[in-house]
């Protein structure tokens, strides 16, 4: 393969006018998926754990950690808006050997993401106690497999796969945002708010408990993976492409095999020519800025709220959200405000935003593999 000069060589860019930006409200969406997907890790797993264990000692790292993702995500989106190609196609153009190495790394890092479906299953198992008589682990796996089956069936039956994912993620993001806003409005959380806001800028000292060296990797992961992080951030390019943003207008979309009509997907993208389309460049830049801001800002807002709730409700009692009790421990967030109804609502929300991670990941990783397969082995 490496001796063949044709491997990993994409056709040259075509030239085409940069299309006008449609109504900005209809163009937004990839940022919402970013926000909903990010809720599956940092918000429920890492940051609430750090806050529940160490109070406000490390909260001052949250804002810089979230803002750090902005330039990277923006540049990923920029490549796709200006070429219509996915970011992996861009890396292949830059250096095919490097892109091949990155593809291998990404494949290895996504060997075991079924854990997210299982994490969503913990919520549904706690909610239903079904199937009756099964162990909590058995019930969790039952719901994990069921959610995977439902998502797979939804993809196969969808007309345009991206639209299904965007619609589902809009619902998850809005439900989570409203639910957390409501839960954060309880008296205990409001009382703790001034100290919490101070902790965002000034670290609490001394720490309420001795530092556990085993938590060093958790803290570093919480900072690096605030928002999406890792290879997940690259998915943003694929959502921008199937949204048809900028030059992606000229690329076909992936459609469902049963009800969708196949669209032609060219092997390479197009860059804007020296024509009247350039007048739209500024609007597309602003669109990208706002879309990324929705993703990162929305994620920051909801992470702040889960941290506030963890500080108010879990930290004083020494409750740590982890393992199979991840969602159950945090269901106290909603239970305090609304009793048993709140607990049920939280478990539904948690199930949605943990298992949506599986949906978005299986879709995006399949897209990346397809992209790389076509670029590295053109005869396929």
């Amino acid at each position, binding site marked *: 393969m490496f001796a063949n000069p044709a491997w990993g060589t994409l056709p040259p860019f075509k030239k085409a006018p940069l299309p006008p930006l449609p109504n900005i409200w209809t163009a937004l969406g990839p940022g919402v998926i970013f926000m909903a997907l990010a809720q599956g890790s940092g918000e429920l797993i890492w940051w609430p754990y750090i806050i529940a264990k160490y109070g406000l000692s490390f909260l001052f790292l949250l804002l810089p950690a979230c803002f*750090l*993702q*902005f*330039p*990277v995500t*923006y*540049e990923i989106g*920029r*490549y796709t808006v*200006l*070429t219509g190609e996915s*970011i992996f196609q*861009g*890396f292949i*153009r*830059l250096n095919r050997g*490097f892109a091949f190495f*990155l593809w291998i*790394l990404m494949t*290895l*890092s*996504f*060997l*075991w*993401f*079924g*854990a997210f*479906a*299982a994490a969503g299953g913990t919520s549904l198992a706690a909610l239903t106690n079904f199937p009756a008589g099964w162990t909590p682990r058995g019930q969790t*796996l039952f719901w*994990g*497999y069921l959610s*995977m089956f439902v998502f*797979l069936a939804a993809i196969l039956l969808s007309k345009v796969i991206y639209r299904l994912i965007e619609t589902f993620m809009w619902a998850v993001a809005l439900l989570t945002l409203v639910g957390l806003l409501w839960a954060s409005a309880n008296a205990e959380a409001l009382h703790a708010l001034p100290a919490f806001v101070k902790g965002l800028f000034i670290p609490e000292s001394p720490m309420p408990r001795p530092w556990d060296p085993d938590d*060093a*990797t958790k803290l*570093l992961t919480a900072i*690096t993976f605030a928002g999406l*992080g*890792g*290879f997940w951030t*690259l998915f943003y390019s694929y959502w921008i492409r199937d949204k048809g943003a900028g030059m992606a207008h000229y690329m*076909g979309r*992936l459609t469902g095999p049963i009800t969708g009509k*196949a669209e032609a*997907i060219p092997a390479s993208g197009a*860059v*804007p020519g020296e024509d009247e389309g*350039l007048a739209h*460049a500024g609007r597309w830049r602003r669109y990208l800025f706002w879309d990324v801001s929705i993703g990162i800002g929305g994620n920051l807002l909801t992470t702040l709220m889960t941290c506030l709730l963890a500080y108010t409700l879990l930290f004083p009692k020494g409750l740590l959200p982890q393992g199979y009790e991840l969602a159950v421990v945090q269901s106290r967030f909603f239970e305090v405000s609304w009793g048993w109804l709140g607990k049920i609502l939280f478990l539904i929300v948690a199930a949605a935003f943990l298992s949506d991670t*599986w949906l978005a990941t*299986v*879709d995006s*990783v*399949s*897209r990346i*593999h*397809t992209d790389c*397969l*076509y670029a590295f082995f053109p005869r396929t």
Partner: protein
Amino acid sequence: MSVRSWYLIFLFLLTAITAATMGFAEPGPLILLSAVIGFVGTVLYSIALIFLNHVYLPRHLPAAARPGRTNLVFLCIACAAYALLAVAYLLTVAKIV
């Protein structure tokens, strides 16, 4: 085969793999490998973005569509921060610090 056919093949393959592995705890070495790859991968692709969007791509773009210097500065800051975090993570898992 079409792009859609390959996408579906990978979709089923990944579903089968995750379904098969979901019932088992993630092996310790794989947890560590995934985490290290996540940190190192973030640094690698962030640096690649500098060269892709600020060196390679501008050659193909009209002047009005090229990225500005401010974006480059922020991207470089993010790269440096991710590199530091990756080094800190590697030193931590290697029990050097």
